[in-house]
């Protein structure tokens, strides 16, 4: 064997691997963003990236932080998968100049990533991760700006059932981390009512995400004769379910979870089917009454032509803002200091999605939920 492929192979591998040396630190504050830029949630990832760019621009226009330091956003794609989630986190943690990280959409991707951030003691804030368990691990460096499944489940149990005075409730989820989590929390929240006998869960099953045909489970659902039907999955399946439900004669009101209804849903289902569909959701960008929201959305629309169609990118922008705010107020980039500050001294700080505060476990305090409905012009408005 001539000086063969072995040596050649090793040489190439070493060269490729040593590309990752860190760059010289400029006088900027670097904040990382990790999100599904590619993969099945590429749409959410791209909107989050654009929102963080706008948030950074707004801060920099106002003179930056810590006396003039500019915010630099460093984006890493984690393709919406657990393994690449961990790799992306490792990449950001490895770059010493990254102060903290806005970390990612999708609970099962955020989990391995947050493990790495915790091990390397780096503040990371989730923006599209509602699984309750993420903040049950008493991590010191993990926070999230979005709400939790259980609070949305309680909202459904307390408010929605009373609004429709519904006795027979059908819950359908899509076996994803988010969808199943919300369905189980809602079932838990309804348990007291079920025990009291005031309501009855007549249908509880899952559909397979990515599929198109749901006539069969829907026929079962119709036979269960529910008075309210709560679907906790994503908007792609929600649109299919609503159109196929009307096909087979299901007339009870449709209520979606906070990922079920957006302008994509209205476009696919068509206005005549979408109107009258309800959704439990955190405040949508368009309904944010806060001045910070108006300013942010105006800048976003100016640059990208339309405002984000789901709440998650807005939470990403708020995550970046609160990191910048903490760095500015503490004057330090050390994660230990920042984590303590975020946990103890941040409450009621004005943000795009309303006043920001974190609980002891890192959850977002006081996330209001509204009941939205699609009006006959196809807009999503607050119905209550």
């Amino acid at each position, binding site marked *: 064997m001539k000086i063969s492929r072995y040596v050649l192979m090793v040489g190439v591998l070493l060269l490729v691997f040593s590309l990752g040396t860190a760059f010289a630190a400029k006088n900027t504050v670097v904040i990382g963003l990790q999100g599904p830029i590619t993969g*099945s949630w*590429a*749409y959410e990832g791209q909107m989050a990236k654009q929102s963080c760019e706008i948030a950074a621009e707004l801060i920099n226009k106002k003179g930056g932080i810590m006396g003039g330091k500019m915010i630099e956003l460093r984006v890493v794609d984690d393709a919406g998968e657990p393994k690449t989630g961990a790799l992306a986190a490792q990449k950001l943690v490895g770059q010493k100049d990254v102060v903290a990280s806005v970390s990612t959409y999708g609970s099962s991707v955020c989990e391995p990533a947050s493990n790495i951030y915790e091990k390397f003691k780096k503040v990371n804030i989730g923006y599209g991760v509602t699984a309750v368990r993420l903040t049950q691990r008493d991590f010191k460096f993990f926070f999230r700006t979005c709400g939790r499944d259980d609070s949305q489940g309680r909202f459904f149990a307390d408010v929605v059932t009373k609004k429709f005075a519904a006795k027979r409730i059908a819950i359908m989820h899509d*076996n994803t981390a988010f969808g199943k989590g919300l369905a189980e929390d809602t079932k838990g929240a309804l348990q007291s009512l079920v025990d009291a006998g005031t309501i009855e869960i007549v249908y509880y*099953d*899952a*559909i*397979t995400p*990515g*599929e*198109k*045909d*749901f*006539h*069969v*489970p829907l*026929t*079962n659902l119709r*036979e269960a004769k529910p008075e309210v039907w709560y679907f906790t999955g994503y908007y*792609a399946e929600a*649109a*299919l379910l609503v*159109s196929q439900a009307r*096909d*087979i*004669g299901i007339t009870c009101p449709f209520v979606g979870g906070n990922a079920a209804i957006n302008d*994509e849903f209205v*476009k*696919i289902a*068509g206005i005549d089917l979408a109107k009258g569909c309800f959704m439990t959701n955190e405040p949508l960008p368009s309904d944010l009454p806060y001045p910070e929201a108006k300013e942010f959305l105006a800048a976003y629309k100016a640059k990208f032509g339309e405002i984000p169609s789901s709440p998650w990118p807005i939470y990403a922008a708020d995550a970046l803002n609160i990191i910048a705010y903490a760095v500015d107020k503490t004057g330090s980039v050390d994660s230990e200091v920042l984590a303590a500050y975020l946990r103890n001294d941040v409450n009621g700080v004005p943000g795009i999605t309303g006043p920001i505060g974190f609980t002891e476990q890192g959850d977002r305090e006081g996330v209001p939920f509204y009941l939205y409905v699609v009006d006959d012009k196809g807009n999503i408005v607050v119905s209550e």
Partner: protein
Amino acid sequence: MHVILEQLINGLTIGSFYALIALGYSMVYGVLKLINFAHGDFFTLGSYLGYTVLVFGSALITSHFGLWGGLIVAMTVAAVSLAAVGLIVERLAYRPVYPAGRLPAVVSALGASIFLQNTIMVIWGPRFQAYPSKLIPNVHLQLGDIHITLLQILILLMSFILMGSLYFIVQKTTFGAAIRATALDRDTASLMGININKVIFFVFTLGPALGAMTGIMVGMYYRQISFTMGWNYGLKAFTASVLGGIGNIPGAMLGGLILGVLEMLGAAYISAAWKDVFVFLILILVLIFRPTGILGEKLAEKV
């Protein structure tokens, strides 16, 4: 009682889509003994092409050809272009690899599948596209208390027409005999004067064209398409073609319909969440007792 009947129709509708796509797998496998993983993406590409024709050309087309005309134009455009794509893929991805045996061809097919899937994503974007819903008036019919839509009947009708015509071509015409002969034994068939390239040409144009038409039907029926749907439908259709006896055209049709009904039974009577587990268990049981699928002929090992 009416529920079972209604569920049966639901099952058959899903099954007819699987059957039509499974035909593409079985034809290509029959002639080349190759699992054409890219076939699922032919189906998606056909659907997207139909979408583009119907959305952008709709004003022009419907005015000239009327509503049904628009659909037919979309179908032909998608079918013809997919026939071309099928040939290109065969020429570029399969022909050079094929002599090296069947396994490299599987990897090449997987490569072609990813390539096509991402090309669709790059061209049409990662977001879901919605078929124009006003195309087919969504009339609800109520036979007794069975809910069935006009679209469902149309789909079932169209699928059986397509399947019937393909069955007729393959089973009853001389060219069909040539295809079956090539499927049984390529070398002997070519010795008997059958032009193998013509058969391959036929298979790699008709298969993708059929897939494209199915893609448009799915787009019309569900009104929502995504660039990854080819992967799910392809996997199910391939399962159906093996269930029916891979390489066997009637087998693919039967396999598809049975798979649809099995899914219906799983979802309706077990649980929608466990439906696919149920389907794959049945498939494995069938193959344990009939190792070459339902209609697959028993290949006695010639020692």
